[in-house]
């Protein structure tokens, strides 16, 4: 057959068309594609989770002090999901993103899976796995040496909280061992509880009964940004009736401010002046609760002491804080101030709250006192919808301890942090002072051993560089952290605690003013790594130290101790998962105060007035000094909190970090917010890279333009800039604490820094 060009083309065309048509009609190519797809989807590294019986276990979340009830869903005994427990009275089913992502802490790459001994230099990350016997023996040996050489007071235990049996157990250990240096991490609670103590003479955990209030005047408290118990507050917010009003006072439009009925932009650090200005208007317009002020308060009017000296009363003092003057200080319009005061005083259940953002920094005592005074003016003390201090209920029945001479001598030494000293008589813990004290000491470090549990000072303390320097002076650091946090990474030994889902622990929390809830965090899963309950570790160390120390811990383990000390309540707690303690005090019984005058003291006579010299004990407004030369640093850097970032001792889970917007973090660089008008002056645009410098440090940041921030300010999120943990968190963004130092309140010693001067240069 002759094949010419024409027939060649027609044959090939026919063949191609026919072939195509043929193969279209056969299922072969589709089958092949399908098979290929199925093959790629059965690659062995795509996990197939094992199915099985679904069960639920109830527990309490202890990732933060909020104490929310959780329900854990398990498949074949394997926890797969955490949800809020609807029956739990604190959070009623609501949970924050951290709580929901809790399983990432249990199974995550940051877990310390066995006791570790440091091999290389501090913080180098070279560890040797050791047995529990070896690790416990090493700690015991050190503590026993220090005790034998009369240096028992140089042992410091740092915890995240002082509530509940675990901190109490550690405190008991220090008592019999012979050290006064039990330190709780500092939060806004320090200042607020001190203000309540000074005005009411009552020591306890401050409670704000937001449940029953209907006008919430928040001096920067991020009630929807992680302040207090997030589960409780989110639940409350969701159920808010339109009759409830939230006023948010802060210089940046936070998520709380955005949801508030009214956002009041205020010059940062001037909240105290505003509180006193509001008091001025309330008193001048005679809008205060006369029954409370006349019958149950002291120091409202001028008064004369035993020596015949006349003192200004609160009402006289606030005369200086006219709306005009306060408007000038705070930048808030004076008519606005008057109407705020009027609305606050006229509301049927008003409450004023403070503690900026998540409430991590104590703030000045003046501020907390001024806010307490506002609450007192509306008679809002110890009653529903008001504020109170709830003393730790003594549900745990501790047997008496007997201590030996060494311990007694050690206990009588002054605290290293200066809390309770002549200088700071009303302050209980002063962690923020520790680094400076250590760095200033020329001779042997007053801290010879530091035991850290549920705290991460190398991340959370201001001025990270100087904290690190101070830690270098401590010869022996032990971390009990279940996670490789910054402090654990810098320790000599890590004796890892169980993670919170493997640990038994009772959790005292509050659900409003009248109810205290003691929850029980029960292990939902057996410990998956070679870890030990921190309570057990302390009991074992005590037993190994022997003598009186051992005698004070007659229990085999923490569980035995908990059962024995809780006695009858244990059964109920174990069965129901919680017990509720009602502490309703009806008026006028609620108005009995333990102060010198027996009344609520507008003029807190117990206040230390030595610094500055001969000051009045009344709250006053002196601008909190801010570090930095205004010529060199023309902007002011303030931190902000968001519920999607954990800035406390436990850091973000990978899921939380995943939720962060690309206007907060871009690759590894953190973004700061500035007002577009400020940016224009600096030649900065959205997404520009800039060098952020403060007197304490510098960081490379990216710019996010945000109209909702006061011009002249820079806002930086807290919770980023970790150096430890894992690749899902480390080296992302900047730690605000690298850029700021503490400012000591002269009367309390507490840190009251709210910001620092800064500059931004485009790079």
């Amino acid at each position, binding site marked *: 057959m002759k094949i010419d060009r024409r027939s060649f083309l027609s044959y090939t065309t026919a063949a191609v068309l026919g072939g195509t048509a043929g193969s279209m009609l056969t299922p072969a190519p589709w089958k092949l594609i399908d098979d290929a*797809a199925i093959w*790629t*989807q059965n*690659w062995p*590294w*795509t*996990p*197939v*989770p094992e*199915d*099985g019986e679904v069960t639920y276990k109830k527990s309490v979340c202890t990732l933060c002090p909020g104490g929310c009830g959780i329900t854990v869903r398990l498949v074949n005994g394997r926890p*797969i*999901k955490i*949800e*809020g427990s609807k029956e739990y009275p604190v*959070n009623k089913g*609501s*949970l*924050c*993103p951290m709580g*929901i*992502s809790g399983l*990432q802490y249990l*199974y*995550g*790459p940051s*877990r310390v899976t066995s006791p570790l001994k440091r091999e290389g230099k501090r913080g180098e990350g070279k560890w040797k796995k050791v047995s529990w016997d070896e690790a416990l023996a090493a700690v015991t040996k050190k503590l026993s040496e220090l005790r034998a050489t009369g240096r028992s007071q140089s042992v410091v235990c740092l915890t995240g909280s002082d509530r509940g049996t675990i901190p109490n157990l550690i405190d008991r250990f220090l008592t019999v061992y012979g050290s006064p240096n039990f330190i709780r991490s500092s939060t806004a609670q320090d200042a607020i509880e001190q203000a309540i103590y000074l005005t009411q003479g009552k020591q306890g955990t401050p409670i704000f009964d937001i449940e029953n209030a209907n006008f919430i005047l928040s001096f920067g408290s991020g009630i*929807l940004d992680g302040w207090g118990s*997030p*589960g409780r507050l*989110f*639940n409350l*917010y*969701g*159920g808010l009736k339109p009759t409830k009003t939230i006023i948010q006072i802060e210089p940046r*439009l936070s*998520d709380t401010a955005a*949801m508030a009925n009214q*956002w*009041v932009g205020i010059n940062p650090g001037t909240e105290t002046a505003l509180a006193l200005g509001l008091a001025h208007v309330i008193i001048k317009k005679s809008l205060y609760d006369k029954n409370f002020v006349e019958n149950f308060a002291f120091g409202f009017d001028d008064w004369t002491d035993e020596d015949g000296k006349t003192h200004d009363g609160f009402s006289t003092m606030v005369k200086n804080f006219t709306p005009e003057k306060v408007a000038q200080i705070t930048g808030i319009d004076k008519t606005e101030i008057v109407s705020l005061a009027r609305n606050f005083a006229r509301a049927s259940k008003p409450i004023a709250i403070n503690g900026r953002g998540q409430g991590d920094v104590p703030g000045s005592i003046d501020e907390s006192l001024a806010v307490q005074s506002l609450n007192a003016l509306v008679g809002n003390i110890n009653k529903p919808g008001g504020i109170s201090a709830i003393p730790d209920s003594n549900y745990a029945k501790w047997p008496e301890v007997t201590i030996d001479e060494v311990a007694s001598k050690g206990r009588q030494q002054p605290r290293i942090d200066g809390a309770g000293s002549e200088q700071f008589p009303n302050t209980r813990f002063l962690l923020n002072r520790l680094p400076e004290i250590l760095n200033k000491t020329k001779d042997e470090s007053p801290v010879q051993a530091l035991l850290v549990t549920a705290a991460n000072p190398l991340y959370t303390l201001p001025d990270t560089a100087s904290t690190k320097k101070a830690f270098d002076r401590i010869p022996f650091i032990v971390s009990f952290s279940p996670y490789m946090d910054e402090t654990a990474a810098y320790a000599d030994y890590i004796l890892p605690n169980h993670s919170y889902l493997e640990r038994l622990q009772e959790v005292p929390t509050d659900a409003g003013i009248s109810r205290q809830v003691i929850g029980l965090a029960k292990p939902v899963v057996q410990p*998956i790594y070679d870890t030990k309950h921190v309570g057990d570790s302390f009991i074992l160390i005590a037993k190994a130290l022997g003598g009186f120390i051992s005698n004070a811990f007659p229990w085999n383990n923490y569980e035995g101790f908990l059962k024995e000390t809780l006695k009858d309540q244990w059964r109920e707690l174990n069965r129901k998962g919680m017990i509720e303690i009602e502490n309703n005090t009806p008026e006028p019984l609620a108005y009995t105060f333990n102060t010198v005058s027996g009344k609520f003291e507008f003029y807190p006579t117990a206040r230390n007035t030595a610094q500055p010299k001969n000051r009045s004990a009344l709250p006053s407004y002196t601008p909190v000094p801010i570090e930095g030369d205004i010529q060199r640093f023309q902007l002011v850097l303030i931190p902000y909190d968001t*519920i999607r970032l954990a800035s406390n001792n436990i850091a973000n889970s*990978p*899921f*939380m*970090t*995943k*939720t*962060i*917007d690309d206007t907060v973090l871009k*690759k*590894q660089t953190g973004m700061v917010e500035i*007002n577009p*008008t400020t940016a224009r002056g600096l030649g900065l645009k959205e997404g520009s890279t800039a060098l952020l410098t403060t007197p304490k440090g510098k960081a490379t940041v990216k710019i996010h333009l*945000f*109209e*909702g921030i*006061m011009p002249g300010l820079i806002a930086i999120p807290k919770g980023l800039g970790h150096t430890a943990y894992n*690749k*899902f968190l480390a080296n992302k963004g900047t730690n605000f604490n690298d850029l700021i130092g503490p400012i000591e309140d002269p009367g309390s010693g507490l840190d009251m820094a709210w910001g620092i001067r800064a500059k931004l240069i485009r790079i």
Partner: protein
Amino acid sequence: MKEKNDYKQAKRYGMVIDLDKCTGCGACMVGCYSENNVPFKADETNKLDSINWIRIFKITNDKPYPETETCYIPMPCMQCDGVGKHGHPPCVSVCPAVATDYDYDTGIISQIYTRCFGCRYCMAACPYHARKFNWWDPVWPADMEKYLNPKVSPRMRGVVEKCSFCFHRYQQARDKAYLEKREELAENEYQTACAEACPTGAITFGDLNNKNHAVYKLKNSPKAFRLLERLNTNPKVYYLTSKKWVRRAGDNYLTHEEPGKIKNNMKEHH
């Protein structure tokens, strides 16, 4: 699944999100990640390759300080009913592999990973960016594979995924009802993970056809609107807001146009 139940009205599951209550906390996102085995990488700041079945967007009214306002808009898959509400959403219409389909019993749009071959037409078609592509195989570090939910299959490289309105929860609830010889599900029997996780109760979920479900009433509220309504995609996700500027942000309105007052000029076909 084209057969319709002829004896009773089909369900149209939908969601109403109250933006006046959404604080932007991210609990819905995290609740969804852990319910649906959504993976995570070391860097999730490139939101184009960050897999989210529900993502919260932050918008502002762009007014200068201190008149600025912000609002969060959580966006799951809108589960569009499509033009004429006949079950032809933009994504289903373009899928060459029938890997995504409209379920006439529930109104939920499925995503069948074993059929998907990753052409990403659906992603291009979706006006809401609800769909995400797996550029990499997922990795769960340390012991994290242990927390995976067996009711939801982990996805692999090369497939598209999106919000399923937690369809596995519907299947479980329906199975349970079947065993108990019930035909109808109670409202609280089937809830999505995000609705359950929302700590302020901003997300309400239920059957939009059922007069007794909360969503039925809420969707008819004068505060209700949907995103890009004029595209006639007919989303089953509604939003509530009392703020005019938020409502305006829900579509590309011209300055003279008033949201809610514009007549729908698209003809209903058939």
